[in-house]
């Protein structure tokens, strides 16, 4: 709570007198190559997915170094109950299987280099359903929140993740296309004006009701969307996933959040060691990043329409866009020193990467086509035409 205040004040001063600049110190890239384990044992109706990767030196261009060809199994204290298979590089999956929620589970990993890692036994937590997802307008932003409760007061610690999907238009609608010879009308299959895009949560979302007398989570902030964002320009949807976690798991995520989402301010805590619940069985001092959890999850989806939002929310297209003209005949040099002719637009791979928008006729009765840059007329650069299956 106090962090927010300080950040605000420091923010205040920075706005007035300060500045923020990129800082890229020379870092001694020692060979730090730590196993990263992420995932949960799903005891409900979802798949159990565990991702294995390795840390990469900060200066390296590669972002992901997947840990492949490992043997990943889920076990109770007594027996092995699931064996995961590597679906994609570093992603190990077991199909849904309902497990006993009163038992404790752990994960065993044998990496390709022969090392064996074992997590601590964790309780399976049953997650209560999400009561509702709502939104409210906060200054010039849209705050999406969730409400939930557990009448048995058992859950107390929650973790959230989401996948948001939105419909959007390109800046200019394009109903025409070149076929290599002429400019012709677009077929429905060639439409590039309305698209769908999606993204996943990029921040750790956790909430605790441990300080409250009842296990009630009210207006838990989920996402903060700029009023000018394209996400809410037509219709927006969010699928929220809620997971009840243990206090220890909560502490882990909070530490993770502190270490990467709010650090460096002199009022922020100094970076601390990230300790999870997974260990090399032969060498307890080897650092391993990750915290295994077990239990069920709950999901809920809502849609938000532009009409539900304040009129003051005006979408700002991510690019500056202009229309240009190309003449069917020769360029009238007396009025235009340089202009395009239709020949520029005809090739299928046209050299100026343009999209034809509309035909025009000038006052002097010259005809031609208005066109724009591809990012301004083609939504498929940033999305897909096909609506997702859940879209309604």
């Amino acid at each position, binding site marked *: 709570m106090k962090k927010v205040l300080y950040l605000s004040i420091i923010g205040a001063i920075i706005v007035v007198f300060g500045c923020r600049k990129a800082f890229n110190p020379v870092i001694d890239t020692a060979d730090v190559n730590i196993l990263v384990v992420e995932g949960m044992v799903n005891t409900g109706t979802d798949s159990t997915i565990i991702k294995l990767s390795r840390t990469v030196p900060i200066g390296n261009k590669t972002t992901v170094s997947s840990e492949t060809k490992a043997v990943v199994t889920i076990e109770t204290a007594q027996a092995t109950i699931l064996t995961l298979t590597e679906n994609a590089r570093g992603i190990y999956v077991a199909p849904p299987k309902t497990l006993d929620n009163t038992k404790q589970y752990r994960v065993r990993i044998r990496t390709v280099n022969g090392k064996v890692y074992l997590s601590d036994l964790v309780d399976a937590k049953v997650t209560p359903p999400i009561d509702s997802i709502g939104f409210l307008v906060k200054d010039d932003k849209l705050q999406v929140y969730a409400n939930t409760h557990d009448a048995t007061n058992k859950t107390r610690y929650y973790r959230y993740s989401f996948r948001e999907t939105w419909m959007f238009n390109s800046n200019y609608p394009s109903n025409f296309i070149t076929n290599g010879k002429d400019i012709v009308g677009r077929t429905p299959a060639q439409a590039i004006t309305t698209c769908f895009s999606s993204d996943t949560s990029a921040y750790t979302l956790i909430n605790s009701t441990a300080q409250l007398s009842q296990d009630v989570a009210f207006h838990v902030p989920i996402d903060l969307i700029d009023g000018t964002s394209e996400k809410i320009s037509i219709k927006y949807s969010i699928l929220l996933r809620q997971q009840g976690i243990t206090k220890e798991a909560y502490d882990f995520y909070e530490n993770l959040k502190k270490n990467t989402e709010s650090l460096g301010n*002199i009022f922020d805590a100094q970076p601390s060691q990230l300790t999870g619940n997974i260990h090399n069985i032969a060498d307890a001092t080897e650092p391993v990043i990750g915290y295994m959890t077990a239990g069920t999850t709950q999901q809920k989806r809502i849609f938000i329409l532009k009409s539900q939002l304040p009129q003051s929310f005006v979408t700002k297209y991510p690019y500056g866009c202009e229309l240009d003209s190309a003449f069917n005949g020769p360029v009238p040099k007396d009025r235009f020193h340089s202009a395009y002719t239709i020949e520029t637009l005809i090739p299928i791979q046209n050299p100026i990467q343009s999209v034809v928008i509309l035909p025009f006729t000038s006052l002097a009765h010259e005809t031609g086509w208005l066109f724009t840059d591809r990012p301004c007329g083609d939504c498929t650069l940033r999305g897909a035409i096909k609506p997702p299956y859940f879209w309604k």
Partner: protein
Amino acid sequence: MKHLYLFIFCCFFCCDYASAQVAGKLLDVNYQKASIDEVVTDLEAKTGNHFYYDPVLFDSLKVTVQASRQSLSNILELAFKSTDYHYAINGQEILLTKGKVIQTDLADGFFGSKPLPGKAAAVTQVFDEKEKTTTEATIENKIYDVGLKSALTGKGTATIAGYVKEIKTGEPIAGAILYVPDAKTGANTDQFGFYSLTLPKGKHVITIRYIGTRDAKRQIVLYSDGKLNIDLQEQIQSLKEVKISADKVANVRSPQLGVTRMDIKSIKEIPAVFGEPDILRAILVLPGVQSVGEATTNFNVRGGSADQNLVLLDGLTIYNPAHFFGFFSAFNPDIVKDIELYKASIPERFGGRLSSVLEVSGREGNKKKFTGSAGLGILTSRLNIEGPIVKDKTSFIFGGRTTYSNWLLNLLPEAYKHSKASFYDFNFDLTHQIDDKNTLYLYSYLSNDNFKLNSDTTYNYSNKNIALKWKHTYNNKLYGLISAGFDRYQYGLQSDGNPINAYKLNFNINQSNFKADFSYYPNNQHTITFGLSSTYYKLHAGNFEPSGAQSLVRSNIVPVQQGLESALYAGDKFDVSDDLTVSAGVRLMIYNPLGPGTINNYAPNLPRQTNYIIDSVTYKSNQVMQTYFNPEIRLSARYNLGDNLSVKAGYNNLHQYLHLLSNSTAISPTDVFQLSNPNVKPQRGDQISLGLYKNLKSNTIETSVEVYYKRIRDYLDYRSGAMLQLNHHIETDIINTEGKAYGIEFFMRKTAGKLTGIMSYTYSRTFLKQNDPLVQPLVNNGDYYPANYDKPHSFNFTGSYHISHRYSFQFNFVYSTGRPITLPISRFIYDGSERVYYSSRNAYRIPDYFRSDFSLNILPNHVIAKTTHNSWTIGVYNITGQQNAYSTFFTQEGGVIKGYKLSIFAAPIPFINYNIIF
């Protein structure tokens, strides 16, 4: 004074042409210890002559003459025999004078238009201890008789004592140097301006030196123990000023190491960010004082953490001396007289903190007339009023300061626009002189900060302090100071944005203290101090409660903590010879954590975790839980190697029972205090230091080199992910750490001439190490790592160039190595975004810090008759617009790790400040 001069010159005039004329009439007189008034009345009645004299000069004369049928001149001869009084008879007029007046020639300039006081011949005056008169000695060439004149015949020594005060305001002058060249002895005035000197009986010249005042001389004839108050004149109008800093002489002569005094005048000459003189920033120019960043008033002294400094304002303990999260210091510069920072030789009378004592001394109210001043700045304004309540006896001083920084917040983007910030502070002090021997002082201080974020979270913190002191002088050799006070620091936080989660969080720490300090000057070789103190702490480390009817917040109240810190101390400054002075002291400290409370016992040899609690002991209210007894030693010695050159060495050890729990780089106003208890050990530290001191150019340039080595034990560090707030068993999150610090400090100060200022360079290191075998994993595998404020190279220059009396330029240059930081060394993806894995702690550094500031001071013209005097300060902070890293951070934005460097004052910041004195 004027009248006195006039009188003296009248005497010269008359004596010049008056021939001694003997009245023929014979008289019978019988005076037994008669006062001059009685004598004169009698003689006037008997002779019809008229006597001219200044009763003040004769007030301690007692005349015993028995004579019959004697001439007037014979009677006067007898009456003034063996005294310095003289008479002259001019017809019917008889002039009574004193000293050699009658024999001297006319004063130079007598026939000119104005008499020159400096050329006045000496006159003498008798002050008799028995008469209880204390003399206000203001004239240099007057000979002051001190003590019972009849005791002159005796040999041996006598003690002279009194106060040194500023003549216009009556304010005591602390740290003035009194030196008696013929006896090769001297003394310093204490914080009340009191001095005591033991000298051989007879004639002496005392020279008095103090920064900012004229050098003064007083001629005395010491007969027996007596009092002499000395008034010094402020040095303002002399054209070629030669200021002699008391500090400079003290620097070489006193046995203390690592002690620096700065007066408000030199603090005001350091350019400050918003133009208002800032006391806590000023001390950063001193060697060995570091800070973690620009926007904090925290300071670290010789490798100690910020909570290891004791900040005292006239004896009031100020827990949080900062406003606006550290952008401003909480001291009103208009009421501050000077500051003194003790880095090494901490006097026995102080204790309870490991690193340093910063003593801020306020001014005393003007005892003669009502005066005041006001200052206007960009963000703050201040006002100060002072004056006598009973002239020369009782005075008050009031200081107030407030801000109007909301305009700054209104410049912010929408997200912060509805934020509001305000602060104020008030000082109110009273001084009442009951009589010569008893003085009462009342000090009070109140500061408050409010901040409202986006209209749903409010936040405030406040210091509240009051103290009453009674100073009693038993005799010239012994005085005592008894004080009682109450200090409080509190903060509160309230958030109502989410009705279900709405909460209030309150914290406060209270201390009541009693102190008795005595100073005893048995002779010139010894200065003995002794006393006792007791502080009772009551700490509410966090009350977390619901706010509003809808709130489901569960109350979480950390049990009250209580403790009693008591100390008995004694010390002696012993001048073994002219060249060697030793100062030795001991402070016996006892600390008792008091009930009520429950203390957990943890299984031995297992990590301190709640699951290893074996049992717990519950204590009743005020029941003693434990007794920590810690004797502390304070030792230092000085040896003169030559003229103005000395070498000093010192050792001390200290203990701290009150800790600030903070795992951020800078301490913040909402950090929690914790008292030592059976599970939280006191922090311990000791330091050895050695220094070489040399003054040049008649003490106008002071130089020193000091080296130190310091150990800190049971320094508090925290477990990864430690919970410091609302923690009912803090011992599970604390790791005891060991620290070492060492360094060399070069210091140079010039206080006279057109260019004055301070230059310092420090090389210092501070390392910490976690060596608790029960804690896993240890930071840096249990090896030493640099502390947050470890900045090896540090250079400071602050100078003032006086073009004329009205115009002066100030410059400021600061350079230091960047502070250490922990940087990410590798990255990985977790929970939807890229994350970083950190290096060993503090393995890297932020870029070096450099800043230069400039300001111009325009003082009022010196027409004394003007009712108000205005002054301006105009300047630019960070002229070069250096983008110094205030902090660096690595954050993931949209799933990608980015490194940033944040600068706070990244552009040249102009400022203007207007002051008015009335």
